[in-house]
């Protein structure tokens, strides 16, 4: 069957199992949009307000499901607007395919109108990319893009298609979706070594990261923890891989991790890392990290072994297979001493929590905010966040009850990620979706409220509004003598009216009671709701390991302004 290049693009997407794409039309993708029109019964296109929103939506779509997210943008500014979204996906290993149009081949290299070298620009932030200047290679390039995006350690792939290739015609034949590139299975001797280390351990700590989040191993990890009498902690990206109600689960460790989780990791004699990369935010001072602790690392990416932390045993390849073989081989163990140590940390943490709640009084604090959200959220809620203090509070306090329920920009830390990602997550899952954002982050890409309204997406958007850029302010308080350079937002934005102007529902909440009423209403609305929730500007994210510090430097109580100048 002879088709135009544009039709081949859409037919190949359909062939690859794509049902939804996010994008924005323009001069050099007008043919692709024409093909989208033709095949609109088979593929749903979500029109965003900005290409950046489309890229984050494709990312959120993928994070919430594991499917490859797809976004489309025109050449030049359309393509460059995708860049932040692609980089966000790259840093968190999210499978995504971005399709961009470009000027016809005859105009390439001539600084033509809206011409940009997007494959050049995205070279360091994609797993791979293609400039397809030959229609004979178009379908296969897209197929390969999907295969690369979803294989091994996933990531974004960009396919740039000049306009003349979209217009040309070529034979197209549907093909089955190829298998992922096979992953190496661990050698039995490696598995045996891991089993021996785990059996010898007296204080085991299972440490799960983003690489484990999508494997659906929550129950198996819990079972292994029970068998080994081990505890489970996670990285920021590993959140929601194990449900929060799991008794062995201590929560996130690291810079803003749970006290018990960070302390238990310090006290452990063995860390079994599953899909973790030991990022600087997780390890603190890497020279002091896991001193005297044995480390096993399971990862599909060989370049992650020994990259940030020297490990005792690195197993590369099929993580799920290796994990299950290790789990089947270990002996049942009992470590009452270890239990006592960890439970003591837990008690200490519960004290901090109780103090925080007591100090709050009648005020709406982050802790109270999440008590209300957790108590009133619907089952299987997807939590989406932007970046900053509210993001860390979500990581600390939100209760996840299923895998892939935490959608947040970890590696790149992209403010403005949330709303687009929430749209993607909601479109992908149809499950209740709550966006926790800040007044700073929300201000970056709130234009996507228009998208949520157009598609009548039931999103509950909670703006944790403190009138400041809270995370930077917290650092300014702790490390810059309280010099609040450009972090106080003297804005007069009325988010309730703003929501209404967009055609969404707006509510304000200054007290816990008001928030509870608003949130309960919001989850019932069949469309986007913005809740403007006010908290104090000097709320801290605690505990905190100072940058470059180690677990010994943990800050657990708010220091007064300017008290510490590290």
């Amino acid at each position: 069957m002879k088709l135009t290049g544009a039709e081949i693009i859409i037919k190949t997407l359909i062939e690859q199992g794509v049902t939804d794409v996010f994008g924005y039309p323009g001069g050099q993708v007008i043919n692709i949009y024409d093909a989208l029109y033709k095949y609109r019964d088979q593929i749903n296109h979500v029109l965003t307000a900005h290409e950046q929103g489309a890229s984050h939506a494709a990312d959120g779509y993928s994070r919430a499901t594991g499917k490859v997210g797809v976004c489309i943008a025109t050449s030049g500014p359309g393509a460059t607007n995708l860049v932040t979204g692609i980089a966000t996906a790259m840093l968190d290993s999210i499978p995504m395919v971005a399709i961009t149009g470009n000027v016809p081949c005859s105009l390439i290299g001539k600084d033509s109108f809206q011409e940009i070298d997007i494959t050049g620009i995205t070279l360091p932030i994609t797993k791979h990319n293609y400039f397809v200047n030959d229609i004979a290679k178009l379908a296969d390039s897209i197929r390969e893009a999907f295969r690369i995006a979803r294989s091994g350690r996933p990531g974004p792939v960009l396919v740039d298609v000049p306009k003349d290739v979209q217009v040309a015609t070529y034979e197209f034949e549907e093909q089955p979706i190829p298998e992922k590139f096979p992953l190496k299975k661990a050698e039995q001797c490696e598995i045996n070594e891991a089993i021996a280390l785990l059996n010898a351990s007296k204080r085991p700590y299972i440490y799960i990261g983003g690489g484990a989040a999508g494997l659906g191993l929550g129950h198996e990890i819990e079972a292994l923890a029970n068998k080994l009498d081990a505890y489970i902690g996670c990285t920021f990206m590993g959140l929601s891989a194990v449900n929060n109600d799991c008794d062995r689960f201590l929560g996130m460790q690291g810079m803003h991790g749970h006290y018990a989780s960070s302390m238990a990791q310090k006290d452990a004699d063995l860390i079994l890392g599953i899909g973790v990369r030991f990022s600087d935010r997780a390890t603190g001072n890497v020279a002091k990290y896991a001193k005297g602790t044995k480390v096993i690392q399971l990862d599909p990416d060989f370049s992650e072994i020994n990259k940030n932390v020297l490990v005792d045993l690195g197993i590369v390849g099929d993580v799920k297979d290796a994990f299950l073989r290790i789990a089947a081989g270990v002996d049942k163990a009992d470590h009452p001493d270890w239990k006592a140590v960890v439970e003591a940390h837990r008690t200490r943490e519960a004290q901090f929590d109780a103090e925080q709640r007591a100090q709050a009084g009648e005020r709406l604090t982050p802790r109270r905010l999440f008590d209300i959200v957790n108590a009133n959220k619907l089952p299987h809620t997807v939590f989406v966040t932007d970046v900053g203090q509210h993001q860390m509070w979500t990581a600390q306090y939100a209760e996840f009850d299923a895998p892939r329920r935490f959608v947040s920009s970890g590696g790149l830390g992209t403010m403005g990620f949330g709303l687009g990602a929430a749209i993607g997550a909601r479109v992908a899952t149809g499950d209740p979706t709550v966006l926790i954002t800040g007044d700073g982050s929300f201000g970056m890409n709130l234009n996507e409220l228009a998208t949520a309204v157009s598609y009548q997406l039931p999103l509950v958007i909670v703006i944790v509004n403190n009138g400041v850029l809270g995370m930077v302010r917290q650092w300014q308080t702790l490390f810059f003598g309280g010099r609040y350079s450009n972090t106080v937002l003297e804005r007069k934005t009325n988010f309730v009216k703003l929501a209404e102007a967009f055609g969404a529902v707006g509510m304000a909440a200054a007290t816990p009671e008001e928030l509870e009423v608003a949130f309960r209403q919001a989850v019932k609305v069949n469309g986007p709701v913005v809740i403007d929730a006010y908290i104090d500007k000097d709320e801290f994210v605690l505990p905190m390991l100072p940058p470059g510090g180690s677990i010994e430097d943990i800050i657990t109580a708010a220091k007064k302004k300017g008290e510490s100048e590290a």
Partner: protein
Amino acid sequence: MSNKFVIAVYVDNQFGVLTRVTSMFTRRGFNIDALTVGETESPAYSRITISLSGDGYAREQLINQMRKLFNVKKVEVLEDDKCIKRELMLIKINNKPENRADIHFAVDAYRAKVVDYTTDGMCIEVTGDPTKIDAFVELMKPFGIIEICRTGIVALERGTTSLLEK
């Protein structure tokens, strides 16, 4: 012990591949001393030879990061004692009558070749192991070097094995 090493890389013979490789070096903060690229026994592949310095960690990271690139088919470290390394240099120097004999003597000793000659200057071609080239440059310095162009290292493993089939 020197921390210099040489890596041979087979990549798809397509445009843009060299950029992918070198862009990764920049991104990961690796410094390369020299790089050569050219055709191979197979039209499907080009061979890049990279010489660089770094400790064991850098070496492992570099190889791992390179192997992750999709157009990279094969990456091997060429160990010093198991490979032949060659480099070619063209060097232009002043040609003063009082130095002429010394220069010719050096050219003979290094089995180099005078490839261009004027009354004021000459151009010499030298081939060999990079250390030999370095030594020749040192030797020419007193005579006044005008311009140097070096190709960077090309290297092959000794014996009958082919890297691609290894």
